[in-house]
Every structure is written in structure tokens, then in C-alpha cells.
């Protein structure tokens, strides 16, 4: 999950929200009211006005839902829900092994945590949006009558089987690996299950004609002279030299930056690798936060405690273009917060705290808030 993680943008949006009733509800004004259809719920991201963007991978669509959850929480309360997968299973009338939690996002206004849940693991699984109420109770977030709008991602490559056999079951699908909202655009990273097409799209919001979403190929030079089209695993937005950038994490954890202004239809982008964070390591989720006047990235990964990455040198750091020997580190420095083990998902709760979904013993999952390191 990603939300507005850039302090400058966040501040500007906060100003916009405070600017009075003229602005209020502007983004939801053109939404339709009813029951949005979901085939699946994957990555989540909050935008302004309590709008939750939900990636529906099966339908290749992004749905913007006006949650109406816009009462500001004066201060967030600590969160600790042990066995949240068992509790969600109880709420949905099933067993914990039939529950998958695909993403977590905190509403930056109300501080409520939202979870994209799959009830069931097969093709008939039911997607459910679950909200953690203040007080720790879980509820199914009702989607029967909400304001929403929907952006279909640009069509898959033309089906070459037109007029021929096997049309009824095109097995191609493009998965959405992460989404974020920034400055009137929903950024969508995707990966197809046939051709090796890793794309990043910028879809203007409010959604209008979205067929022309931007699709780009990103290259980075972390592996020496030659590089391939690697898929973005997770990304955040961040200002570098007063210009909005994407910081994208790849497998074998190079961290790559490129300006968002480069995201033009059909563009091929050369990213700048600003950190090698060591190998045997798969990034899972990432946020930006501030501490003592400095910005840090916090990255959950599959093999060690979360990584706290300094952005001190982000403007000055040279792009990494030569191989980094022995699976080493290079570029931005980082420290590992060793005791934050098993973190699968994270999102910022407030200025001091983060919410994490972490694996405990025996397949149990806990949702808890932790002070930012």
C-alpha cells in the first residue's frame, strides 16, 4: 500500500483540505453512487478526502471508493490485534486458512486501518474490505451503497486469437503489484503473466478517459552494463531536488529513482540506481517518514528485519552503474531494525507510528502499531 508519502505533497494537500468548503468533496463530486463490482482486491492506497483506491487485479481496474471516513482523529491510539487472520475468519464465517490479507492501508484522516481480504484462495474467492474500528473491533466495510469511480486499465495486447479458437478463455492477465496516489494521478505498477511486460502507469484522477494510461518500461543499471525489464515490487513517491520522483524497489533490492514527469505514454525510462541493499532479499513494502527533521525510507522485506534507509545523500548520490561485488551494499546507507521480524505489510499511522502486519508463530498474523525507528 502506498499513500501520499511525500511531506511536501502531503502538506500541500493538507492545505487544500483546510481551504474550506469550496474544495471539499471536489474529487468525489463526479463519482457515481451504488455498489462497485469487485473481482478481487489487491494493493490499496489512500488519496485525499478519504478516497481509497483499490486495485482489482482480476478485472484489471482501479476503483476509487469514497469511504466517507473523513472525521479527523485527533490522535491515533495504539493498535494491537493478535491473530487478526483468525478474527477476520470468524467475522467472515470461515477458517483462518481461507483468509488472505493482500494489503493494508491507513486512512490518513481517520487513522482507521483498512485491509484488502480474500475470503477463499481459489478462483471463486470473495474479495472483502475489512476495517479496524477504533476500539479494535473488525467490521466488513459496506460497499453496497458508496460513491465510487472506476478506471479500467488499458486493454491487454490485442488478442491474436481473434476469430479463432480458444477465445472464451484468454489466460492472459496483468497483475497489479503496487499503487500510489500523487498529485492528481494514480500510479500503478503491473506485471503480465505471459509476455515479460512490467509496466508503470499514471492514471489521471478524477478518472475520465483512462484508456490512454501511461505505460512505461523502466531500465536500471544495477547489474552492470546490461539490464532487463525488471518488475517494480513496491514504490513510494518522494521529492528530490524539488522534483517528484518515484523510488522503486526491485528484486535483489536495488532502489531506483526516476522523475515522475518521465512517465509519458510509451516512454522507455532509464532509472538511476541509488542503493544496493544486499541480496537474498525481496522487498515487500515501503513507506517514507520523517524523524528529527530528516526523511527516511522504511522497507519491509522477506529475509531480515525492516530496513531504515537514510535519504541524506539522495540528491548527491551517484548512480550505481557497476556491479556491486559479493552481494554488497552501495549508495544510500541503511540500518536494519533487527527485532521487527516477520513484517509483511506496513503503513504510516501518524507522525510517530507505523502499523505493521507481521507473521507470528503457527501461521498467525498480528496487526500492531510500532513507534517509527
Amino acid at each position: 500500500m502506498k499513500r501520499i508519502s511525500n511531506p511536501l505533497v502531503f502538506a500541500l494537500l493538507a492545505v487544500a483540505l483546510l481551504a474550506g468548503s469550496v474544495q471539499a468533496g471536489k474529487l468525489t463530486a463526479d463519482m457515481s453512487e451504488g455498489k462497485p463490482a469487485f473481482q478481487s482486491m489487491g494493493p490499496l492506497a489512500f488519496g485525499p478526502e478519504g478516497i481509497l483506491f483499490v486495485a482489482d487485479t482480476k478485472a484489471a481496474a482501479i476503483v476509487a471508493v469514497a469511504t466517507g471516513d473523513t472525521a479527523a482523529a485527533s490522535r491515533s491510539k495504539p493498535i494491537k490485534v493478535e491473530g487478526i487472520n483468525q478474527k477476520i475468519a470468524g467475522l467472515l464465517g470461515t477458517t483462518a486458512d481461507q483468509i488472505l490479507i493482500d494489503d493494508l492501508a491507513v486512512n490518513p484522516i481517520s487513522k482507521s486501518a483498512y485491509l484488502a481480504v480474500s475470503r477463499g484462495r481459489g478462483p471463486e474467492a470473495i474479495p472483502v474490505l475489512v476495517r479496524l474500528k477504533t476500539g479494535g473491533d473488525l467490521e466488513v466495510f459496506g460497499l453496497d451503497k458508496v460513491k465510487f469511480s472506476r478506471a479500467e486499465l488499458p486493454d491487454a495486447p490485442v488478442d491474436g486469437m481473434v476469430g479463432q479458437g480458444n477465445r472464451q478463455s484468454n489466460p492472459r492477465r496483468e497483475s497489479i503489484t503496487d499503487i500510489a496516489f500523487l498529485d492528481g494521478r494514480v500510479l500503478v505498477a503491473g506485471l503480465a503473466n505471459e509476455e515479460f511486460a512490467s509496466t508503470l502507469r499514471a492514471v489521471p484522477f478524477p478518472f475520465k478517459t483512462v484508456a490512454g494510461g501511461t505505460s512505461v518500461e523502466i531500465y536500471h543499471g544495477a547489474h552492470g552494463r546490461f539490464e532487463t525489464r525488471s518488475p517494480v515490487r513496491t514504490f513510494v513517491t518522494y521529492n528530490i531536488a524539488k522534483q517528484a520522483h518515484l523510488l522503486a524497489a526491485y528484486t535483489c533490492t536495488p532502489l531506483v529513482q526516476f522523475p515522475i514527469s518521465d512517465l509519458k505514454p510509451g516512454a522507455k525510462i532509464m532509472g538511476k540506481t541509488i542503493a544496493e541493499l544486499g541480496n537474498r532479499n525481496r522487498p515487500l513494502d515501503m513507506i517514507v517518514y520523517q524523524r528529527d527533521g530528516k526523511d527516511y525510507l522504511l522497507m519491509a522485506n522477506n529475509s531480515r528485519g525492516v530496513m531504515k534507509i537514510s535519504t541524506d545523500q539522495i540528491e548527491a548520490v551517484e548512480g550505481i552503474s557497476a556491479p556491486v561485488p559479493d552481494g554488497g551494499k552501495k549508495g544510500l546507507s541503511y540500518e536494519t531494525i533487527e527485532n521487527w521480524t516477520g513484517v509483511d505489510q506496513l503503513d504510516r499511522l501518524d507522525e510517530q507510528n507505523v502499523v505493521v502486519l507481521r507473521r507470528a508463530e503457527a501461521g498467525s498474523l498480528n496487526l500492531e502499531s510500532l513507534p517509527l525507528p
Partner: protein
Amino acid sequence: MKWIGPDVRTAALVTVMAAISVPGTWGQERVHSFDVASKTFSVDWILDASNTSKAAVQVSGLSPAVLRQLRRSKWESPQWQQLLAVFAATGDAAALPRLPPVSGIYRVLPDVLRFELHFPLESGLTYQAIFQPSRLPGGRASGDTVMADFRAPARPPGPSTVVTHVYPSSESLPENLLKFYIHFSAAMSRGRIYDHIHLRKGNGIDIELPFLEIDEELWDPSMTRLTLFIDPGRIKREVRPLEEIGPALEAGKSYALVIDPEWKDSLGNPLQRGFQKAFTVGPADREPPDAGKWQVSRPKPGTREMLTVTFPEPMDHALAQRVIHVTDASGRPVVGNVALENDERRWVFTPNDQWLGGNYHLIVQTTIEDLAGNNIGKPFEVDLFESVQRRPLTPTVTLSFTVR
């Protein structure tokens, strides 16, 4: 018993998700009639005959006055749940913190109180409905707690799903192989799938993290085909040995792709048996496919002879099936069936109708891939010292052939 409706008053606890059918039918309308546990009330489990995925619990024996009070109440969900709630019994509930009640909607009907579950019942799972008369409006304690259990029928046991095939079919694969497709005989389950898939060296040792592990998992819509990419960071490159944890595959060595039988299908049953695809690895393939080197057969007019395209190397199974099609001279699609043979080295097209004499075209999207992910006109690896912008790529190439 059918649902009675429209209801007089609905108290929505939380709003409903789409009801989606669950496999299997239960065949009877009134599933469980719990004998009156108090002298006044009974709690029954009800299944909707027209939609077996829907279940409800119904309390009868409530007086018209009480029902009227319930209708007029402005209760929030906790108050309704104290009166009547359903819990999913997981078997180890004692070891866990108390689970929340199952999500659903309360309806006060003319002569009963009904709780409709939002979600289908889970096969084999026991549900417990608890009705506490003491929580009825007015605060008059009236009768003991009434409970009614219902066990949803279990699915037929036993594993039946198997891995039917792994592509590429060849037993010799390039060092820079990009992906496998694993095909199953029935729908599989999502979640931590990579625990069940291993790339094993000839010495029996598993290669560490060889695959691109995508949390979303790259399934087809029917969940009978999984795409498994080799992690691009683990594919051996041209000029530089991987200094990190090494390439996943190296030329001259033998490997096996191993699927554990513990992997569960969509019904929760493990695979009938494990699966193993053994293969040897040859040199890397860095040459983009060249359609000019493909051999196209010449079917005879007035027949439905197969049209074959023979590639000098195996092509990606999914893409070769999808991105090649046939048109007549004027561009109209020729309808037929496609198959791949000879370890994906031969594309075979059988037209629905007879060939007519004249010219035809094979339209090939340049996104077709060989086993190393090279496209027509575009190698998988890009030399960064050339501008990536400089590679013009046409979306299709056309091969023409004449039927005569």
C-alpha cells in the same frame, strides 16, 4: 421454506458483500430444527432453496409485542449481537481470543427474527447460533440461552488434482530461461505458493530464491495455470558473472523443477501426487527470434489441411498460441484452432473451413518470446550503452503464403 419478504424492518449490522455461490448444494430447505430449548423460543437454521449459498438463523416464538419492540428499536450492532449471534467454531477456539460474530444482517419479520449471514457457509465448518432471551427489549429476563449448531456438509474428501504439464516441454533449456508455466487439472489455491515449488540441482540441493516471487501470484483467471518467472536478477548475463548469489541456471548442469504434493487445490485438498520436470541446461540464447527463418507449410486448396509454422527454436507456449493469427489476402481473419507441437517448435493451425486458392497472411505480434524472453527485433537484455529509445519496434510482422 422460502425467504419471507419484503421485511418489515431491516437493521443492517454491516453492509452486505456480493453473495457468491459456494460449490455443492444441500438439497433441503429447512436444514436444522432445534427443538425448543426453552418453553418459549426455537432457533432454526434455514437454507434458501433458491440460493444454497445463503444461510440464515431464525428465532420463532417471539410475541407480537416483542417483535414490535424489536422493529422500533434503534439498536446498534453490539446490541443485536448480544441478542442473537452466530459464531464460526474453528475447533481450537479455546486457545484463541474470542472470535467476533459472523457478519450478517438482522431482519424483524412478521412473526420471526432472522439473521442472514453475509457469506456462504464454509464446507465442513460448524456454526453456532446463540440466542439470549434475556437481551430482548424491555430488559425482562425471560428464558435460558438457546443455542443451535449447524455443520455445513463437508466436501467429498480425497486428492484429485494433479500437475498436467510444465512448459517449456523441452528437456534441454537455455541458461537464460525466463519462465515456466505450470498447468493443473483443476483450480488451485493462492497464498505462499512458492513454498511448494523448488528448483533443484542435480545433487539434490535446492537453489535459493530462484523465482520472481510476486505476492499477487501470476495465475490465469481459472487458476489452473501458474506463470513462474525466473528472477531477472538470477538470470546469467552476457558480460559479467553474477557476483551475488549466482545465476539460477548454468549451462552444462542438470536440474529439476519440483512441485510438492502438499500444495492445495481450490477445494483445500492436496495434490494427488508431486511432480518433477528434469532438464539439462544449454548455452544462453541472446538472439531475438527471426520470423524470416520460420518455415511455413503450404496447405492445398479445397482441403482443411493443417498450416504449420516451424521455428528453429522452441517458442513461449502461451504467447505462441496467442499472438500468431491468419488472415486472407484482404485481412479478414481465418478461423481455426491452434496447437503447439514438437516441444513448442511447431505451430499448427487447423482452419474451420477449407482453404481457398490464393494469398494468405500470418500476422505475428513482435511480443512473441522465445524461451529466454527475446522478442522479435528486441533481445531480453538491453545494452545500456545504446540508447533504449533507439530501438524501433513494429507491433507485428507479416509472413505471406499462397494456397495453390
